[in-house]
């Protein structure tokens, strides 16, 4: 047993080594971690609540109001860090739900094939054509108030179909590879073949899916917020943008109101995409430099 453990450790070490050697991965991770930390600890750095009328309106950045104030005198920095929290929340919950549903449907349909595949793909195709916005409008009409959680759940439950389709076709092609046949004639069980042979080959893809779903959920939430279907209580990056545009921040030259949320969204999603491309190089030994 001892020998086996040593080998496994060296494998983990190897992956860590290539992770910290990969520039794309490091850039992406730094961007992501910066905003994550800002979202987690930022609210403790400010004495104002996000919706409090903290001081004079239309105030440019100063030592007291780090990112200035809105038209009504709310602290932009406080709004930004609280907005980051809710955006990461949506990304985490929506991305996780979409990835989990997509992966299970994809693996199951792809490996089983036949009737199981037909039925699951029919459901997938139906889900694919239901737009998040339409569903959100319906919910907006019925719910007394909308929170970040329900928004994330709806985004997650409508975003999985393309993941399922992609995972299914990948599984289809992988299960016909000889190494799956070899595992089968070694007597390995089906579940173990999926988790031990097929899934590791898609590990970078699974990570990629998660990262894309994470970013996609954030973007979807921003879209919904921006057109007025966001949470009725609290603040988010999308709501900040909505308010800024609604009160003519650009025309009034209030760049400190509109640039921070937009930049944060762009950098978070951009950082996630950077991580995504880096991951492929880390997990695929073929792409590494010898």
């Amino acid at each position, binding site marked *: *047993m*001892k*020998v*086996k453990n040593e*080998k496994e450790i060296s494998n983990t070490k190897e992956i860590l080594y290539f992770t910290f050697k990969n520039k794309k991965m490091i850039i992406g991770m730094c961007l992501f971690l910066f905003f994550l930390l800002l979202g987690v600890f930022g609210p403790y750095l400010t004495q104002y609540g996000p919706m409090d009328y903290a001081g004079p309106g239309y105030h440019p950045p100063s030592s007291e109001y780090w990112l200035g104030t809105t038209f009504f005198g709310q602290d932009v920095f406080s709004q930004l860090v609280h907005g980051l929290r809710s955006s990461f929340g949506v990304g985490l919950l929506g991305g996780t739900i979409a990835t989990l549903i997509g992966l299970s449907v994809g693996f199951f349909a792809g490996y089983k094939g036949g009737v199981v595949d037909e039925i699951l793909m029919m459901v997938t195709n139906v889900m694919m054509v239901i737009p998040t916005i339409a569903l959100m409008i319906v919910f907006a009409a019925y719910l007394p108030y909308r929170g970040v959680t329900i928004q994330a759940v709806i985004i997650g439950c409508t975003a999985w179909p393309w993941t399922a389709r992609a995972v299914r076709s990948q599984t289809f092609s992988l299960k016909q*590879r*000889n*190494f799956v*046949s*070899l*595992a*089968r*004639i*070694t*007597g*390995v069980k089906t579940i173990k073949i999926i988790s031990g*042979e097929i899934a*590791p*080959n898609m*590990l970078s893809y699974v990570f990629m899916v998660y990262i894309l779903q994470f970013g996609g959920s954030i973007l979807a939430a921003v879209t919904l917020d921006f057109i007025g279907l966001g949470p009725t209580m609290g603040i988010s990056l999308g709501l900040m943008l909505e308010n800024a545009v609604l009160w003519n921040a650009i025309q009034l030259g209030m760049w400190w109101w509109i640039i921070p949320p937009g930049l944060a969204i762009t950098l978070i999603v951009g950082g996630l995409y950077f991580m995504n491309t880096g991951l492929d190089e880390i*997990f*695929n*030994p*073929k792409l590494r430099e010898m």
Partner: protein
Amino acid sequence: MLEATNLTKEFKVGSFGRGVFKAVNKASFKIDNKDIVSLIGESGSGKTTIGRMILKLTQISGGQIKYNGKDVSDIKNKNLKEYYRKVQGVFQDPFSTFNPIFKADRIFKMVKNEFYPALSNKEWEKKLDDSLKSVGLNPKEVLNKYPHQLSGGQLQRFLIARALLIDVELLIADEIISMLDASTRIDVLNLLAMLKEKGLSVLFITHDLSLGYYISNKAIILYRGVIVEMGPTDKVFFNPVHSYTQSLLDSVPRLDMKWDEIPKRKKTYTDIVSYIPGMSKRELKMTEIEENHFVAIE
């Protein structure tokens, strides 16, 4: 040892699976102890499908396979594992037989986990070393490497070593040397012949007649999913009866003759063997032309 009776594989084709394509059509053959049987046929003739059916990787549509007298057509779980202890396969493309994410020696670990969970590491390492040495590999050189760091020949030997670890009785070798270059090719062939001396039976699937002749003592000629001729290699190769076998043998370029020097073959049984499988609905029967030499005749 292994006996296949009326082995059939049908695939549904066309929209809504209306059409049926018979990849293998009522193939019956036997593999005895210490036999090296070469299964020869062109691309799409059903050779690989037969191999995969014996390895239980493809479901059988009809007929049955008996191993040591026991029907193995529908075995599952525990019985299937016992079957895999005796019957193993080596596949055509060594590169795709290894999971590219893991190191190549993982295939041995899998064997240990599934078949020898109780063996101590020391005993196992010795067993592994012996098995690698017996296929002409230096364990220190080849272990702990990724598949793309090893050559095709080394990978193919890995797979044979893997099969030897399980103490197999029958090895299904599916075009195992078509991806190798000429010099490694003969090494792997000689290795198979050597293993035969140790009591291993091999089903050698190939499209290359000279390789089939070189190594096997029995030959099965497959055409469009139908066995058209089978028997001892000498008889099939030097007294081919079916017109397909004849044309197949004529199509091998010879080392000692130019194409225009080759004498025309005297067609012997052509009057009784005009059947082309798939073109006619008539039933055909395997007929014993001479001792142990069977030909499909309608």
